[in-house]
């Protein structure tokens, strides 16, 4: 077993609702290794999304450590954490979060622009474009490059989001109920696609779901109940 790419050690997260503390993560230990698919299973409100956000450095834990390749990241600056997130993590969300003004191709390209200075980007423009087109072809949207999100179906939008998550060549995919908004046939296609891309690239993969059948296809299932990992 390889060393974990991303890990959480004794992570707690408590939200403050007015003066009322709401403990959402109550000491979570979690790890995902390269090439490994972990299904994060739990009822709605169990804290799955919150754990994903903490792992992806979108939200700092109230206590405990988040480790990237075994290194703690809590002391890093906002900028450094953003860069780490860009390099390590590709997010896929239930509601796609594509930018409506951009075409499918531009949405994918945008992921590559995030940490690139303008001059370098312009120099590498054609190469980056080639890679984005190749990714969109891999997810089956080679004919839809110039379509806006509004002109795509739910499944197609999620495929664009998957291509976008892969463009920056992350080490881990964090997918938060990526099929939650899709019918079961489309969902199966999207999951098959994600798994095959994950296997090709040897990525770590955290798949948040409350679908038991889907979870069984993962290498490992982690169940969450009430902010704790059980079993």
């Amino acid at each position, binding site marked *: 077993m390889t060393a974990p790419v991303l890990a959480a050690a004794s992570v707690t997260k408590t939200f403050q609702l007015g003066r009322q503390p709401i403990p959402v993560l109550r000491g979570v230990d979690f790890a995902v290794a390269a090439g490994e698919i972990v299904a994060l299973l739990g009822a709605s409100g169990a804290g799955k999304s919150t754990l994903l956000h903490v792992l992806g450095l979108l939200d700092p834990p109230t206590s405990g450590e988040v480790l990237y390749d075994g290194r703690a990241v809590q002391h890093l600056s906002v900028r450094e954490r953003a860069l780490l997130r860009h390099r390590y993590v590709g997010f896929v969300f239930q509601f796609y979060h594509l930018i409506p*003004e951009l075409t499918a191709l531009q949405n994918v390209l945008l992921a590559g622009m995030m940490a690139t200075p303008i001059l370098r980007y312009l120099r590498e423009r054609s190469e980056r474009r080639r890679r984005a087109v190749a990714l969109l072809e891999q997810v089956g949207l080679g004919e839809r490059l110039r379509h806006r999100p509004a002109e795509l179906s739910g499944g197609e939008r999620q495929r664009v989001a998957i291509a976008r998550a892969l463009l920056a060549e992350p080490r881990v995919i964090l997918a938060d109920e990526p099929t939650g908004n899709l019918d079961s046939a489309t969902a199966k296609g999207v999951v098959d696609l994600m798994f095959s891309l994950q296997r090709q690239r040897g990525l770590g993969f955290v798949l948040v779901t409350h679908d038991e059948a889907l979870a069984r296809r993962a290498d490992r299932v982690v169940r969450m109940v009430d902010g704790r990992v059980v079993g």
Partner: protein
Amino acid sequence: MYRLFLALRYLLTRPINLLGVFGIALSVWALVVVVSLFSGFLAVIARHVHGASADVTVSGLPPGTGWPGLQAELRGETNVAAVAPRVVHYGLLHRPGRRPGPPALPGRTALHGGDQPFLFVLGVDPAAESQATGFAGWLVDPVIPAELRAADPREPLRDRGDRAAVLVGLDRMRAEGLRPGDELVLTTGTMRDREDGARVTAQVQIPLVVAGAFKTQHGGFDGNNLFVGIEVLRRHLFDGASVVQEAAVRVADPQDLDGTAARLSRAVQRAVDRGDQRARGIAQTWRQKNAGFLESVEHQRALLKIVLVVILVTAAFLMLATLSMMVTEKTADIGILAAMGGTPLGTTQVFLACGLTITGAGVALGLGTGCITAVYLEEVRQVLRWATGIDLFPLEVYNLDRVPWHLDPWWLLQVTLMAFATGFLASALPALRAARHDPLVSLRNA
């Protein structure tokens, strides 16, 4: 890179942002055109005023100052090329036996004169005056028709018997239908000692004969002044004494004008000061002497600048409004930007880039159209007059042959900086609001 890319995509998909572009362009355009017009006007007016003035004028002399002494003092300054004596008086100009009443509102249109008979009379020595000022040229200006010219421009002030020759401004000649040879009277007054020793005002009537017209480019000068021989005024007002009230000075090196005037002031005061605070003698450059007039034009330009900057600020508010709308719409995107490795600072910069792009487009458009309009304003005036009969700018009043313009690079730079400063402030507000938006709120909500 994503900041500029997103900013451009956001802008290009929202035509409403053209409002901000046009608003800023319009105010920049106005700032360029109006200030160019005023600066050009000011430059021309200053040239005209200078053309009708001596480089340096010495005035405020104590009563009874003699010319030979003053002349020697002025010639002692190395930068003085020529000097001419003047006696300056005032009076009512009218035809014999038809003395008009005083004007209802004296000086009401003093800028141009010409419509009231209360005038300054300059007693000059034509030969010396021609050396010290543009006097000789004023008599032979091409616009003066032959029948109104002085018979002999080299000796224009030839008296006829007891009637003293007088030169009248061309416009006044025309307005009053005067021709050379017409008889006029100047009614004025002077202070005299009565037998009992009291000083009283005595009326003086000077019989005149029109010698010809003069024309400078400065309408205000022509309308308010007459020329007669200096000896005429000395005879009628000072019992023939060789007194002088003003000296016109031409300098050799115009670069040193202010320094020369300051040195002449000191020299004159050393020579003539008799302790009278109001009459110690002072040398003023043509600019200083006409400061009131020139500064009033500059003052108007400054006021207009303020008004136009207010328009610029209004345009920036317009942009603030459209940007705020956009930020409200686009908070949904802030979550995914963060997830892809963006920072709050990056979000701020996206919307700042939007504002600065709008500003930049507006400034470029405004500067471009403004400069073109400024240069071709004369053509615009002609087309407008031809099409609507409205005249934008009364050229004749100011002796101009076209609408003046002057594009000062420093002013263009100032306008650009002001526009970007206001544009920056107007986009900073919505941009900071965007940065404070929690990305997780966007990510949790569809």
